[in-house]
């Protein structure tokens, strides 16, 4: 069996690693202006919310691009959010969210 795609994996790793490493390895990042440090502190909530919202609401439609989809997935994510905000427990939130979506789909609602 061929293993030539191992080289492709190495090349994919090689183009991914710089984006993961460069800012972390750059010298003098602690000497950034205060506003830049504040900006970087806010990247976390912004990018995580961006991922969550895009992954939940946006779906590819093949040739026509992307569209907003309102489905049971939103209920699952919102249920998880509420549980996490209430109990500060992500695992419990995920159990509730996944359970809700699985139950709704089983019932033919999703």
């Amino acid at each position, binding site marked *: 069996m061929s293993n030539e795609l191992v080289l492709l994996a190495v090349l994919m790793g090689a183009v991914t690693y710089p984006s993961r490493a460069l800012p972390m390895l750059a010298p003098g990042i602690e000497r950034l202006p205060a506003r830049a440090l504040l900006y970087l502190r806010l990247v976390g909530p912004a990018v995580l919310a961006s991922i969550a919202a895009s992954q*939940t609401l946006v779906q590819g439609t093949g040739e026509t691009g992307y569209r907003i989809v309102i489905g049971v997935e939103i209920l699952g994510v919102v249920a998880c959010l509420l549980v996490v905000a209430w109990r500060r427990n992500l695992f419990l939130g995920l159990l509730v969210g996944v359970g809700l979506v699985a139950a709704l789909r089983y019932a033919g609602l999703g």
Partner: protein
Amino acid sequence: MTADLRAARRQLVLDSLGIAVSAVGFALVFGLSARSAGYSLVETSAMSLIGFAGAAQFAAVGYVAQGLPWLPIIVLTFFLNARHLLYSASLAPRLRHVPLVQRAAMAHFLTDEAFALAATHFHRVGRVDIPGYWIGAVVGVFIPWNVATIVGYLLGSAIPDPAVLGLDIVFPAAMAGLAVGLMTGRREVVAAGAGASIGVGASLIVGPSVGIVLGGLIGPLLGMAMPAPAGGPAEPVVAESPLALQPSHMADAVAEADADAELEPPDEPGPMP
């Protein structure tokens, strides 16, 4: 180790467990997809070990199956994973006391999930906790992803569709849940709300891989436009080890930034685009 740190690490392990479930679900499918596309087990495993980038791995499987040349796959991988620049830049000021070689190693394991777990954990303990980073990145993501890749390859079509079990929502739900842990003030809430709105809007136009990055880039600017909190920096920064941030530096920096924001004349263009 303090009781607070022990409690925070227990919470991190629980959080990582949820993330691991998501990683296992999708890596099983990746293993199956790679096998269907004609990958060998070694090639499949190499993708998860060396490439270690979920969306790009799935895209590569599709392109290889279609017989596309490697160059577009590599270019696509670069763009799909460019968002890691944001994660790395966001963690970098906190990691500046970590030895260079260790930072270089940590970088390979920096994924969406690893960033989310690390950022939330560091925020929770108020300082950098390197073992905590490894727990989230390796125990919570890397090991489950790689083991499940192999299992998925070997089990083949016996694997149930994660969507049937509702596991497809674990990833976005986990990202949303971990974002909640970072929201300690108005600025964080506005940054998250703006990031979500811009992310969705931009994803509709240019696709999620670019939309997510735009949300992450522009959202913080809107958060910074909010007035500074009255009680000083929202995030406590405690220096308990050489790896911790120097409290005076960070607190001064944040306070200075807050003061800057308040001193800006109202008619002066702010950081908003």
